[in-house]
């Protein structure tokens, strides 16, 4: 399916999957929230800037190098943890400060990755196969193991949606906790009563397509359809993110 690869959606010349996911993520953020993204997190970084330009001007953008509220992503290239975020920031708040903030219950939203997710909301960013003798050693959960349990809302984004990513049981539980939403190229998952549930399906995607790409059973009830990116969102995205960093994971 062209969409999963991040190309243009058939019959749609206005936006790509990366644009849609970025807008969906931006809409999840509220004004005045303290929001953190880590390394390899271009899409959430752009989404935070989009939310600030739209409905959340006083959202607090926190990041690994420590630049609070960078006013522009113009200098950013391959990294979402680069010193340019400090250069463009209004003040300095280190990574250790951000972790401590979350431990005190004052971090509203954390964006986190992972490679495998299961129906119970467990996240694996550590290893495929046994931890001590892994078949594949993954990069590691970075901050997730302390942030998913302590941030008020953990949002996961993943640009791959297939049965190897969304599984019945993860190989290793790096963490679980305050999982709130998972945004994929096909849909938005929520987390209710200890189960991952289908919240919304993206435009032009069917329930059957989502189920077919997901390794655990989903219920076809009360499912919303994601609103396509608006003209205003798309215009702002192009201005905020000249280099299309938001879609870097699709390349």
């Amino acid at each position, binding site marked *: 399916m062209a969409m999963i690869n991040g190309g243009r959606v058939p019959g749609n010349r206005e936006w790509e999957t990366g644009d849609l996911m970025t807008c969906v993520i931006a809409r999840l953020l509220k004004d005045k929230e303290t929001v953190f993204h880590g390394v*390899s997190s271009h899409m959430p970084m752009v989404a935070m800037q989009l939310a600030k330009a739209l409905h959340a001007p006083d959202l607090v953008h926190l990041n690994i*190098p*420590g630049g609070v509220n960078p006013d522009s992503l113009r200098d950013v290239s391959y990294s979402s943890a680069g010193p340019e975020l400090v250069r463009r920031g209004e003040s300095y708040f280190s990574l250790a400060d951000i972790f401590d903030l979350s431990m005190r219950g004052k971090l509203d939203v954390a964006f986190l990755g992972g490679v495998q997710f299961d129906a119970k909301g467990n996240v694996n960013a*550590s290893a495929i196969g046994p931890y001590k003798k892994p078949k594949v050693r993954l990069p590691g959960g970075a901050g997730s193991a302390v942030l998913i349990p302590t941030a008020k809302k953990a949002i996961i984004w993943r640009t791959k949606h297939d049965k190897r990513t969304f599984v019945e049981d993860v190989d290793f539980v790096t963490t679980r906790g305050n999982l709130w939403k998972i945004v994929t190229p096909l849909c938005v998952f929520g987390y209710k009563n200890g189960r991952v549930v289908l919240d919304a399906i993206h435009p032009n995607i069917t329930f059957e397509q989502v189920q077919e790409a997901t390794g655990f059973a989903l219920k076809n009830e009360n499912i919303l359809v994601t609103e396509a990116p608006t003209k205003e969102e798309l215009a702002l995205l192009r201005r905020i993110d000249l280099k299309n960093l938001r879609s870097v994971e699709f390349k």
Partner: protein
Amino acid sequence: MSKRMGTEEAVQSFVKDGMLLTFSGNALHRAPMSFIREIVRQEKKQLEVAKTAAALDVDLLCAFGLVSTVHAGFVSYESEYGLAQHYRKAVEAGTVTGNEHACYTVICALRGAVMNVPFMPVHGLKYGDLLVENDYFMVVENPFAEAEGKPAESVTLVKTLRPDLAVIHAQVCDEDGNTIIEGAQYEDILISRAANKVIVTAETVVPAGRLIQRKDRIDIPGFLVDAVVHIPNGASPCSCEGKYEASEKDIKRFIEADNKEELHAWVDSYERKDRARNSLSYKGGLGAWR
């Protein structure tokens, strides 16, 4: 007395097989790459490395089989550079132990060293297999709860990581080691306090006393620093704020090297620059130090 020395001498004098090392920066930013390449040239072995988020630094040492254990929250390149393949393969082969932390537990473990206690309580690490599989985490009951009439409460402890040596690449320091880090500091201030010995490699080294007008900007006071090494481009091909960006070409050249000869050629290509300035190169005048 000046603490200046050359790259070769600093590695010879301070790095011993089996040491626990920690490095400045984060991912592909301001890692002390010249110093690490000199470690490779001198083939120091069985090294341990502690860092919140590592990339080329740890991957390079793993490529030459010089590492026994990595204590880190994240070991990978970003975006188009992909996974740290040498690290990954070494863990999969069982030659390197990958002690996975949450980045914050590395910070707490280093804080343990700063405060000279054997472990630190760490909030937040409450669930999952990291607690089960790793002997450097332990869950205990809050010993004060009962006396205070509070309900029982579990507290996770992380074992202290006390680096033998921190190597920090900075923009500027003086020959006594007073060091200014411009822009993002990452965990560099913390590691300068946690490690038993500290080496600063710097883009610019100025004579003692020359930073006195900027004393409120000094991040690492000289008395904590054991040696100063003047290495312009010492973080290359990683970035150094205010000086240079990461070099995509040179990072790719490393990542695409797929045999020992090409890896050695990559390290050799930097040898002259890595070793260019030594303690005898000062010829007088501030300009001569740059």
